[in-house]
């Protein structure tokens, strides 16, 4: 249990780091580490259940989220020299305050039915739910298109973590379908980022102001 808690804490901390990092490379690395923790959580599920299909899912998550997606992003960053990505709507101290409030909210009794789905996992589910809220806030607070994409992927990671601890994992076929969707989404989002950069000369979403009419 302690081992699982540590993995989930790393997932949570990477979400916090995504909020405070000033560099795109840092954000991509944090996402890669977060995804690796999800892989380890899946490995733990495999060891507990001996369900070999989990190994396949784990392998695909490893390839797509831990290796390929970060590589895509790094290639994009290098190609367009997008080193810094610090622009946020709230400054760092205020951002940290919001993160604290969101984390406290996720642990509050208001969400007790949600985090108490499996009573022994309440702490873990609260942490996974906090990560979801932090990821949602990342999408809203960051101006960079890359950060928005990483925010969505982090949200997806936190939902997966929540599902694992709530005992809501789906059948192999469905998980493959979901992973297929996510993979296609990644490819599309990455190519959109490249197109956005081509049209606007930046990945700063606030520079997109062509929709006035």
């Amino acid at each position, binding site marked *: 249990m302690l081992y699982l808690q540590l993995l989930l804490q790393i997932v949570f901390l990477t979400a916090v780091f995504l909020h405070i990092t000033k560099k795109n490379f840092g954000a991509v690395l944090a996402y890669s580490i977060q995804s690796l923790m999800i892989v380890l959580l899946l490995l733990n599920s495999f060891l507990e259940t001996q369900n070999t299909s989990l190994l396949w899912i784990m392998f695909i998550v490893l390839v797509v989220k831990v290796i390929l997606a970060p590589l895509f992003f790094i290639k994009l960053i290098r190609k367009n020299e997008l080193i810094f990505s610090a622009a946020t709507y709230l400054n760092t101290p205020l951002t940290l305050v919001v993160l604290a409030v969101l984390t406290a909210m996720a642990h509050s009794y208001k969400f007790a039915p949600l985090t108490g789905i499996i009573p022994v996992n309440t702490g873990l589910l609260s942490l996974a739910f906090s990560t979801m809220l932090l990821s949602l806030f990342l999408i809203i607070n960051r101006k960079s298109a890359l950060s928005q994409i990483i925010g969505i992927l982090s949200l997806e990671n936190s939902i997966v973590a929540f599902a694992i601890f709530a005992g809501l994992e789906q*059948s192999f076929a469905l998980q493959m379908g979901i992973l297929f969707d996510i993979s296609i989404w990644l490819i599309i989002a990455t190519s959109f980022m490249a197109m956005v950069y081509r049209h606007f000369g930046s990945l700063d979403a606030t520079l997109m102001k062509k*929709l006035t009419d």
Partner: protein
Amino acid sequence: MEILIILLSFSLAALTAITVRNKRIIELSSLIASFVGLVTSVLIAVKVSSAGGSYASFQFFFVDGLSAIVMLIVAFVGFGATVYSIAYLRQETAKNIIGLSNVSKITSRIREYFILLNLFMVSIFLAIVANSPILAWIFIEATTLSTAFLISFYNKPSAMEAAWKYLIVNSVGILLAFLGTLLYFTSFHTGMENGIITWQMLTNNATLLNPMIVKIAFVFILIGYGTKVGFAPMHTWKPDAYSKAPAPIGALFSGALMPAAFMLILKFKIITDSVAGTSFSQTLFIIFGLLSILIAATIIFVARNYKRVLAYSSIENAGIMALGFGFGGLGIFAAILHMIYHSLIKSALFFLSGNILLKYSSAKISNVKGAISVIPITAILFFTGFFIITGAPPFGIFFTKIVIFSAIVKTNLWVAAVGVALTIILFVGFFKHITSMVFGEKPADIKNGEDSVWLILPPLVFMALALYLSFNLPPFLNNLINYVVLHY
């Protein structure tokens, strides 16, 4: 078997567009696929009606009365959009609106269009007939992926921005819907070995669900799939995407995607109602419904783009449907009819907006004057469509609005009064824009005359069909609507 035929025909059409370079063959294969989709959907709807409201095919497909109605809507709009797309893209190519000078690049862009159009049709049909909520989620997500590139079809910065906004907002929404869907599975304590959980299993197991979890789950579902429907305040992507996508794609968004996403919300609503009582979902439907009508009614006045006006009208109509489904009984009957009429008329209006764009080369309301003398048939149809969609008598939407608001009056006079007041405001806002477009002095450089009869026929047929259905419902459709009223 019929469902497989539909899926196969659209998949083959997509494959043809991928492998063949001849534009005519691509157009023909898409046309055949959408026609097969239409005929087969009618056959399935008749079958569902005569079988008492449900039809199962293989392990993964299940069509009930509501899915059959949505399938019919999607098939009609899909067929109309395909016919219109062929004529529309030919005109755009001729007038160099697509924005590419190289012929081979234009052909490849048109191929992309038909690949994505057919993939969208496959995804949306699969989402409607999927027997499992997770499968339905996978295919609704696939519709986001297939349509994002269609919004950025013109490859302009504004189109790119609209597509980006669509991708981000809908991806967040769809992930929240995923979380909501998972929370409904807490009654199963699944584990991976249990296979696919179907809608029926979920309904049968509803009593084992924790009401508080179901309430939270339904909020996620309503926000998630509500983003696709375009409920305020998750509607922000809608005016941008509708205004920047090619006209037939706007028709598909409003006429096909919206009912499909609404259908999924309703499927979760019946499970929620059986666990948490009807008042919870009713309150949420009233909040989202009224907010949608309010936002649409206030923003429509300042809209400067006629496609955005159509988008706001869609948001308003989504709100009215939400109110109808929220209040139940006769309200549901009217809301379903409203959904059918809205899809037909709004698609027709989008097609007509395409005709206006082709003629005036501008989507700005201020640049369109004297349409009645330039493109008289389009202008008359557009004007008529405006009256129908805003609920003017004697068309169907007038009756559905009357019935929905009458159903509300019985239980909540204030909601009905606010709703009626807002729809009147929206009528005035819409009227202001449409009169300035249809009447007035036409610009000197615009030549009179419609571009093609094939750009007129689809909206004309859709409006005629809506008019026919306003006074005469085929028995099978009536049966299906009655099934929905009884079960939802």
